[in-house]
């Protein structure tokens, strides 16, 4: 009888023992467990993204020859246009370098672009992230900026063997330095909890008092080179209203982000060619 009563508490004792063991387990062991389980799951996600690619391939194959010829012609036109832009871009870059040399301006950070496919989107009240199909195999560093044609996407927060996790700009824990288009003064952009209705949004703080934003003429928030992660001038979002912030000295407002952030398929990772060595450069 006594044995029966004690056996009732066996599950609780086992649970307590596990808690205690987990508590004293070294961080290396937990980290190893996490990496092992993450890497074990990764092939399933990579496989599903390749199946998606295959599906798109077969969908495209069903197009008629006439449609493909028209698409080819359109592509050829665009290619010619982008060639012209490329030439102009090269000339402007050269001019900028010449002026920088004359004015003795400190060098800009240069980036390598790595295009990656989005294999998972995880957007909810608790976290906002995407998983991309490139990781250590493409030497993606943690903290790199991620962008798309609509502007800033977010930042790499975790890199695994073949995948990386990107924290989206709409995530409440995401924060970066920004400025308004045509105004060099820095402001702070931060993501916010999303309601699930309408476009994704964030908040801007520390905006100067003289800035005016209205619904008819919203002002564009862009990235700055402060912080070193993002190149300057990348679109973040539009601000339609600014009001006095909690301090009363600066203004704050809501930032409307690009709706395409919710359905990203491909993004570009900006990998710095000359990474900042913050530890060794610290005073």
């Amino acid at each position: 009888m006594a044995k029966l009563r004690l056996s009732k508490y066996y599950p609780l004792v086992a649970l307590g023992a596990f808690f205690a063991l987990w508590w004293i387990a070294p961080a290396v062991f937990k980290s190893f467990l996490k990496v092992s389980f993450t890497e074990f799951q990764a092939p399933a996600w990579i496989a599903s993204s390749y199946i998606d690619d295959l599906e798109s391939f077969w969908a495209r194959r069903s197009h008629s020859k006439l449609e493909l010829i028209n698409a080819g012609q359109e592509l050829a036109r665009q290619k010619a246009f982008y060639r012209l832009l490329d030439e102009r871009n090269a000339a402007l870059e050269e001019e900028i370098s010449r002026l920088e040399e004359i004015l003795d301006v400190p060098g800009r950070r240069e980036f390598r672009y790595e295009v990656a496919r989005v294999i998972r989107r995880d957007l909810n009240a608790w976290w906002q992230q995407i998983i991309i199909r490139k990781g250590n195999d493409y030497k993606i560093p943690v903290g790199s900026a991620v962008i798309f044609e609509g502007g800033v996407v977010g930042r790499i927060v975790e890199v695994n063997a073949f995948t990386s996790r990107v924290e989206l700009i709409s995530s409440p824990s995401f924060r970066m330095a920004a400025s308004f288009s045509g105004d060099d003064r820095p402001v702070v952009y931060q993501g916010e909890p999303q309601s699930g209705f309408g476009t994704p949004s964030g908040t801007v703080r520390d905006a100067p008092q003289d800035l005016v934003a209205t619904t008819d003429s919203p002002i564009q928030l862009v990235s700055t080179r402060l912080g070193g992660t993002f190149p300057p001038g990348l679109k973040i979002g539009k601000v339609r209203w600014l009001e006095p912030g909690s301090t009363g000295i600066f203004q704050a407002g809501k930032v409307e982000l690009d709706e395409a952030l919710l359905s990203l398929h491909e993004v570009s990772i900006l990998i710095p060619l000359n990474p900042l060595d913050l530890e060794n450069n610290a005073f």
Partner: protein
Amino acid sequence: MRFDPRSLLLVACNALLLYVTLLINASLASINLHLILLGPMIVIPALYLNHTSFFLSTLLTGLWVDAAFPTSFGLFTFSFLALGTILFSIRYRFHAERNFHPSLLAHATNLTCILIMTLWHGHAYFSSGAFWIQVSITTLLSHIALLFVAPWLFDLERLLFKICRLETEPEDLPIT
């Protein structure tokens, strides 16, 4: 203390459920909807298996979920083991061989998981109305989906027991 092979089968089913849920979530992201379907993962191991096998199955499931989500590693492992242990201790009260009681338990455990996530990851946003709207929509949608998903998963698990010629009865039958 014998090892029950059903525990590994249940881990595989839970991994499948998580994978399908995350695939659906990736598609629903464009309309800002999200599903949390974690509750059913804990129920069958707690109701069907002996303690050692239940513990192994729930531990592996918890680690699997922890690796898939950007939460503190161990949050779901702890939560699943704690919730599973409570279910295990009172399992003789439930009819595990039918879907009614397991489905109710799946709803209860799922709601607890959402609550744990909200307390752990959302405590900084409690003052935000948008956060609560999103949490409410997610909870409502997840529990509507659970009405269909939980019985499907339980039936699938029982069917797999049969196909793999494993024990189809729970370890402890309920007191009648």
